[in-house]
């Protein structure tokens, strides 16, 4: 959880706490206000962790559409962007593409990684050959400051080593905690080794986009859903966790077609990317 989220959650939480603390003033309505306050906190947590679920529900219930730009409309289902031009409807849809972070792979750099890279090229070609509709695989990348990143990793490793030695020297050391810390240290060490071997650290955000066409809005959105389902199936051959992007995050990804925003801001806003 980043510092912005902590700030927003804690200040909104304080407001709710002030309401709960005044329960003596509500008379017979006190239980109702307490229930509403808990509900408000739940809504806030939902907005924080799963707004891609709650926002489309609100737009669907209220029947709200969003006009992003001229000719670009987001329907109330909030799962695609529709452009109407020259008598045709174009539906744009997005999928998040997260790489599975296997602990054993992150801890050790071994020969299997090379095998994965080699098979990756073949898999990619098979995917391209099996798809007969337009799509884009996008990677937004930003090279990190090498020295700064290395120092950050070494700092984190030092802190974990200190915590581990404190745990080990305590009267009753917890084996599970020590093992967990050792794993974390191994992961950081593997990263430091990679940098020492010449790899440059890079921040990335990956997503897939596709466009479907139809003579009606429904046809275009139905075609889009079929295309997205096919993309999910074929990209499963890579170690990717793929999810359809809806709501606010879809608006952001659509904007990325026209300009790239500040990476940290993008990272904060595009929550489906882990």
């Amino acid at each position, binding site marked *: 959880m980043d510092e912005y989220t902590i700030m927003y959650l804690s*200040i909104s939480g304080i*407001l*709710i706490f002030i309401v709960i603390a*005044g329960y003596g003033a509500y008379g017979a309505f006190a239980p109702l206000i307490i229930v509403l306050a808990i509900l408000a906190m739940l809504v806030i947590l939902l907005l924080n962790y799963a707004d891609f679920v709650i926002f489309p529900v609100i737009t669907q219930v209220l029947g709200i559409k969003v006009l992003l730009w001229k000719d*670009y409309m987001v329907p109330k289902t909030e799962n695609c962007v529709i*452009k109407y031009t020259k008598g045709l409807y174009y539906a744009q849809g997005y999928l998040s593409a997260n790489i599975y972070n296997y602990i054993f792979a992150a801890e050790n750099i071994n020969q299997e990684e090379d095998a994965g890279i080699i098979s990756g090229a073949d898999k990619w070609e098979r995917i391209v050959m099996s798809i007969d509709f337009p799509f884009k695989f996008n990677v937004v990348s930003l090279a990190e400051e090498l020295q700064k990143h290395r120092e950050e990793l070494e700092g984190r490793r030092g802190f974990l080593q200190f915590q581990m030695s404190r745990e080990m020297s305590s009267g009753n050391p917890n084996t599970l905690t020590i093992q967990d810390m050792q794993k974390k240290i191994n992961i950081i060490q593997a990263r430091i080794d990679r940098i020492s071997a010449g790899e440059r650290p890079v921040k990335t955000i990956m997503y897939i986009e596709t466009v479907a066409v139809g*003579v009606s809005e429904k046809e275009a959105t139905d075609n889009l859903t079929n295309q997205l389902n096919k993309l999910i199936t074929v990209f499963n051959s890579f170690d990717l966790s793929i999810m359809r992007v809806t709501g606010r995050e879809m608006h952001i990804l659509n904007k990325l077609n026209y*300009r790239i925003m500040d990476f940290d801001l993008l990272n904060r806003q595009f929550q489906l990317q882990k």
Partner: protein
Amino acid sequence: MALNLQLLLFVVLVGAGIVVAVFIYVIPSPVISPILAIITLIIAVFAFATKYYTYLMVPALKMKGRTIVLSADEPFIIAPNNTAILMHEGQEVYASAFVKIPLYRSATEMSNDEKLDFARLFSRMTTLSKIPVKISSQMHVINKDEYITSIRNKLNEAQERYATLGAKPGGSKASNDRIKGEVTMWKNLMDNVSASQAHALTIYAMVSAMGGNEEEALTIVNQQAEDFAAGVSAIFGVSAYVVKGIELLTFIEPDHMIPVETVTERLKEKATEEAL
């Protein structure tokens, strides 16, 4: 700018929430206090929602019917020098340029070592820039609009000649048959061309820059794009170049990823088949 507005709205809502909440304690009435409490709770939810939804909140206040209008303008304009697109957001101007990376190597013709090298070169490309870069591999429908339009014009012309000749009394049967054959030929060609779609795979990179005015943003982004193109060219040994003119739209507009004329005939046929 967006972050400032977000923080401002958050502070205003939190301030309003605190003021309302204070009244709960100042006027401890069993009727008014619950109402004030509910208002405070609503404000608390809205205050948190500013974290993600500031861009929708202000336009939502001016909502007409059930449509929130974020912008009624075109999303971008092509820069006068045709090398980038420009996007206006408040006082700021964003320019984005596209670098085409002509990589036409297939994995099937590479050895394992070559595949590894290629992957390493590709990951080196992602570390080229200290500003965010979007690298995309795009499959789009090849534009056959012009070809289809020319065939359609020829078909229409032949059909018109056939109709005129048929209506004319005493026309020769031979010339009638010849024009009929011509109509059939163009019709068959039209069906063949529009029946199938050809796809192209393109790799490109996109860079963006912000400026106080269009010239400033354009100058920065052109420089960044040229730098990136030079870096990619050096890594892969290909001639990466900054995309100019109408080619830009293939990477941005959905109707250029699937060109209108190229798919129209196929969609018409599909609709007719479904109707039948």
